[in-house]
Structure formats: structure tokens, C-alpha cells
């Protein structure tokens, strides 16, 4: 059987007046049913754009310039607009980093949620409302009846995030792309959401891409992890392999920056320097200006290697 999601050589570029921004540059990944893939990496490295590319939501002046995206064996490039609409919000859904991309500020929550249900299911308004209410409770929203009648601005930041999660899950999609969905949630509510996510994957075989900078969530939730830097996946593998034995210097730097591994009040260990601006990327390894292991030959882009059967790496001088 084909994988739930398979991406091969995806390139999504923005053609701006200042130059070409290679937001996603040769990304390949694979996700099986019921599995959870953590996608981490530098701010601006192309994580959200990878998600938008799968959802067919890349806007001008951006464009998928090459690559293939297959969902359950269907090449997305072959779909027409009605087929896209059936796919989005039903079989594939995305929880956006900014919940206001999901929510319309001038419509009440009930209007928006019921619409999301009825667009893909032939059910009465009453039944749709029942589903919405149940879904809101699952993401920890109390008094769902009254909250359904409210407008987005009457919610706190984390409550808006949870409403967006509820909408994304209400039709039990096969594939969910969750983009930083719990950035404003305290650990107890986050635990509730992660519990629901695990349950969905286990019971319905939903595949999940979890984009986050929170490495402890990746550690606790995901099976596999991909680390992105400047539009590329620089390292991937099982969570245990990558987090316990990072081979790419950027992954190592990330792990060292976690506040819990530093002395309170003292400066945190940080990766020196700045990510190169994406229109300035040349052929070499994009990390080399910041990399403690960089050598002369890093001016030529390192090829993707497979240190073990489940692992990929883009680095000429990896950590031992």
C-alpha cells in the first residue's frame, strides 16, 4: 500500500523584487498511517510553507516550482479545484500557526463550525451543532454552548487556538498538519490536546505532521522527526536517534539552547550568528557561517546521506 503522504523533491519559491526566496528547497519526506512526524527547525526555515504546499495554499508571488506530493497515492498536481475542495477540510486539514487564518473575525463560532461540518457531510444543522459541541469539549473549552455563540475576539489566544484545532479535527481527516498548535497552552490543557491527538492517530489511523519548536513535545509525541534549516531537511530519523545522537551541528545547537539545560538567570547557550537571508543562499551548506565544524569543502552543498536505514543527513562533517 502507498504511504499516506509522500513528498519528493519539493521546491516552493517566492519570486520577489529583491530576488528569489527559496522557502522550501528540495524537501522529501514520507508519512505512514497512524504515525506522527515532528517537524522542527529554525524560524523562517520553511516549515509552514511545506504545510501550505501540501494544502495547495501557496500564494503569489510564491509557487511550487518542482517536486511531487502524493496523498494516499494520488498526485496532488493532477487535482482540479472541486477535487481540492473535497480533499481540504475533509481528508486533509491544517491547523494554522495563526488561528485567525482559520477563523473569520466577523462570524460567530457556531456559524463557522457548522459550516465546516456541513460542507463535507450531509447532516442537519442540529446534528452538526452536536458534533461541534462535542469537539469543543474535547479541546478543553468549557461552556461550549455559550462559547459557540461568541465571536473570535471574545476568546483568549489559547482558546482561539483550541477552536481552530476543533475545526480542523471535526471531520476526522486522514492527514492533519498541525502548525505550532499549542504555543499558548499551559501543560495541563496541552496534555488534554495531545491525548486527543494520540487517540485520533491510534484509533482512526490518522497521520499527523506536528510542526513545533518545542522539542519536549516532539520527544513525547512523535515517532519520527525532521529538522529543517534554510528550506532544507538537514537531518531526519526516529525521535530516539535524532534527539539522543544528533549528527547535524544545527540539531546539536538546538538541543543545547533549551532553557531547562541551562543554569537559571545565566545567558542561555545560543547558536552564534544569524540565519542567512533566503535570497542570499548560495550553493554551499547554509549553516556554514554559524557552524563550529565548518571546513573549506562545506562551500559545496553536502549531499543527502543515509547513516542508518531510517536516517537522513545533510552534512559533510557530522558529529560522531
Amino acid at each position, binding site marked *: 500500500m502507498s504511504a499516506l503522504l509522500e513528498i519528493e523533491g519539493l521546491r516552493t519559491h517566492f519570486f520577489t523584487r529583491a530576488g528569489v526566496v527559496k522557502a522550501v528547497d528540495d524537501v522529501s519526506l514520507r508519512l505512514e498511517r497512524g504515525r506522527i512526524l515532528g517537524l522542527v527547525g529554525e*524560524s523562517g526555515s520553511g516549515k509552514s510553507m511545506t504545510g501550505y504546499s501540501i494544502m495547495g495554499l501557496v500564494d503569489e508571488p510564491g509557487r511550487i516550482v518542482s517536486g511531487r506530493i502524493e496523498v494516499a497515492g494520488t498526485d496532488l498536481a493532477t487535482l482540479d479545484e472541486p477535487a481540492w475542495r473535497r480533499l481540504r477540510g475533509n481528508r486533509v486539514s491544517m491547523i494554522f500557526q495563526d488561528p485567525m487564518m482559520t477563523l473569520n473575525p466577523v462570524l460567530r463560532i457556531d456559524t463557522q463550525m457548522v459550516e465546516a461540518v456541513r460542507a463535507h457531510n450531509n447532516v442537519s444543522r442540529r446534528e452538526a451543532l452536536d458534533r461541534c459541541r462535542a469537539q469543543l469539549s474535547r479541546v478543553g473549552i468549557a461552556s461550549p454552548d455559550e462559547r459557540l455563540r461568541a465571536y473570535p475576539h471574545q476568546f483568549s489566544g489559547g482558546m482561539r487556538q483550541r477552536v481552530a484545532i476543533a475545526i480542523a479535527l471535526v471531520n476526522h481527516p486522514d492527514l492533519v498538519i498541525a502548525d505550532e498548535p499549542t504555543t499558548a497552552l499551559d501543560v495541563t490543557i496541552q496534555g488534554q490536546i495531545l491525548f486527543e491527538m494520540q487517540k485520533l492517530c491510534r484509533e482512526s489511523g490518522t497521520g499527523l505532521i506536528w510542526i513545533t519548536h518545542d522539542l519536549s513535545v516532539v*520527544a513525547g509525541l512523535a515517532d519520527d522527526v525532521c529538522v529543517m534549516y534554510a528550506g532544507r531537511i538537514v537531518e531526519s530519523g526516529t525521535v530516539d536517534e535524532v534527539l539522543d545522537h544528533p549528527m547535524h551541528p544545527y540539531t546539536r545547537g538546538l538541543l543545547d539552547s533549551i532553557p531547562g539545560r541551562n543554569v537559571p538567570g545565566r545567558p*542561555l547557550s545560543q547558536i552564534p550568528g544569524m540565519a542567512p537571508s533566503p535570497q542570499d543562499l548560495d550553493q554551499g551548506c547554509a549553516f556554514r557561517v554559524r557552524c563550529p565544524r565548518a571546513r573549506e569543502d562545506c562551500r559545496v552543498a553536502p549531499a543527502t546521506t543515509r547513516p542508518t536505514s531510517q536516517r537522513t543527513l545533510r552534512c559533510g562533517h557530522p558529529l560522531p
Partner: protein
Amino acid sequence: MITSSLPLVELRSVSKRFSRPAGVAARIAHRLGASAPQGTVHAVEAVDLRVDQSEVVGLVGESGCGKSTLGRMVARILEPTSGERLWKGRPYEEYEHEAARSERLAIQMIFQDPYASLNPRMRVADIVGEAPVVHGLVSRAQRDEYVADTLGRVGLDPSIMRRFPHQFSGGQRSRIGIARALAVRPRFLVCDEAVAALDVSIQAQVLNLFIRLREELGLAYLFISHDLGVIRHVSDAVVVMYLGRVVESAPVAELYAHPNHPYTKALILEVPDVAARRRRYTPIRGEIPSPLAPPTGCHFHPRCPRAFERCRQEAPALREVAPGHASACHLNDS
């Protein structure tokens, strides 16, 4: 110079209620004698807070418990329903006149939702550089250089200055918001989930910047975050809220070593760790209480593993349980 014993910011019994404009039916019912209008949210209830110069007070609590509302009242974006706010010992109202503009500028807020707080039609150079020019902190001729410098401090390449907000990633936008707040050289910063959208390396860079500004310029912070690792790293003292009320406050080391309130204990017990793999996450036990219909007595009782009869009837008061350490729980009475 102000006397050092005076807090920079002080809140005295500050509350905020939002009442939803009730629907027509409810309004008629109300006129016909039904009780209070429906849907009043007690977002913040009688909160006292004090932040000294150079101090970092961490604010944690459940999603929807009133942290942003409190932060917005401190940053004078929102008016409290009742209570008093003091800046350097004098009521906020005394700073309304024109001559006190620089004092008003001294409090800045970094918003939880960076996108909604950035004008989509303005370029980054204007978003960050406008206020400093208007308020005479830099000349118009020096503006771009000043903006470039500020952007560099939060890890953004100055070449992006001519771009609009929608052309950025989430974490880049959030750093534009941070740069904007820093650009007017505040004395006090309300950081509302300011580093939540940043990968840990850039987060480290921004936190290091905050720590440095505090050491060099005496900047003080109200630091709202759900990340207990970050809170522990930057704060001197921590305030824990639950459903509109402060339930515990203590110096940072004391709070992590001896959490007193059952909600705080639940938080600290669950601090996530990269070493924990394939966790079995658990749903919240008990009912999640709603700010629209807060439970009687202690707001935490529907979820509290140690709740007893009195908790359902009587709200516990905040009481000192150790020097500088206050908690609101009936268990401390026995």
C-alpha cells in the same frame, strides 16, 4: 531619581469583567425582571501585583485565565472595571497629560498575537521606526540605521526592512513585534508569550537580550508564558493565576522547590522534558471550569484531587505560607 523602595508598577485589587452584549431575547427578559445580564466573563478578579525596577515577574496560568487581560491593563491598553494601577507610586491617571508622554511610552507590550498587532499596510521600517522618530528618540535621517540595529538584536536580517508583515514566517513576525517594543526604549515590558513562536536557538538569543537589557538598563518585565522552563530561567518571582484569580506567588526558586497550591503542583509535575519519549498523555480529570460560570468557592475544586467540602463553599484567601510565598488553598488552614 526615584527611591528604590518604590515599586515601578503596582496593581491594587484590579478586576476586569467583560459583559457580552446580550441578545435581544435576553435583553427583553432582563427588562422584564430577569437577573443579571447573561454571559459576563470575570476575566480578572481582585489581583494585586508588584514589579520593582530590574525585576522580572513571571505570570503563568491556564489558557483563558486572564493573563493577557491583566497584561493589557498594566500596559494601559485596557481599562480595569475596578481597582487601582500605580506607576512609580502614582496613579496611572496622573500621567494622562501631554507632558507625561515619555512616562507613558515607558511601558510597552509585546503582544501574544503578533500578526493582528502589526499593520499589514506598513513596511517593517515604519512599524519599528515610526514611534522612535515621532517621539524624538532618533532623527528621521538616522531612522533606517536605528531600525537595522534593532532588527539585528532580535536576529533579523536588516535587509528585510522594506517588506510587509505578510511576507514573514510566524517567528519572524513575532520578532518584528519585539523590535517595535524595544525601539522606544521602554523601562517596563509586558511580554505576552513573546518567545512562544521562536525556535529554541532564537528564543535563547531573545531571552539573552532581555536579560542583558535588564542588567544594563534596569528594564523590568511582566513575563507571561506557558513555558515553565522559560519562566524559571528568566524570572525572579512567579505569579500563578487560575480562572481570574492569583492562586500562588513566590520567589522563583521557592516556587519550583516547594509549590504549595494543587494547581501549581500539577503544572510543575508535568513540566515536559526532552528525555521523556512516547508519553501517554492523559486527559484532564474532572470538569474544566468556565469563566462564564465560575464554580463556587475555590475555582479549582472541580479539578482538584484534594478538594473537600469547604472548597465548594468558600473561596480561599491568599495567605503567606513562607516568607514572600503566598498561596490560596484551604489545605493550609489545617
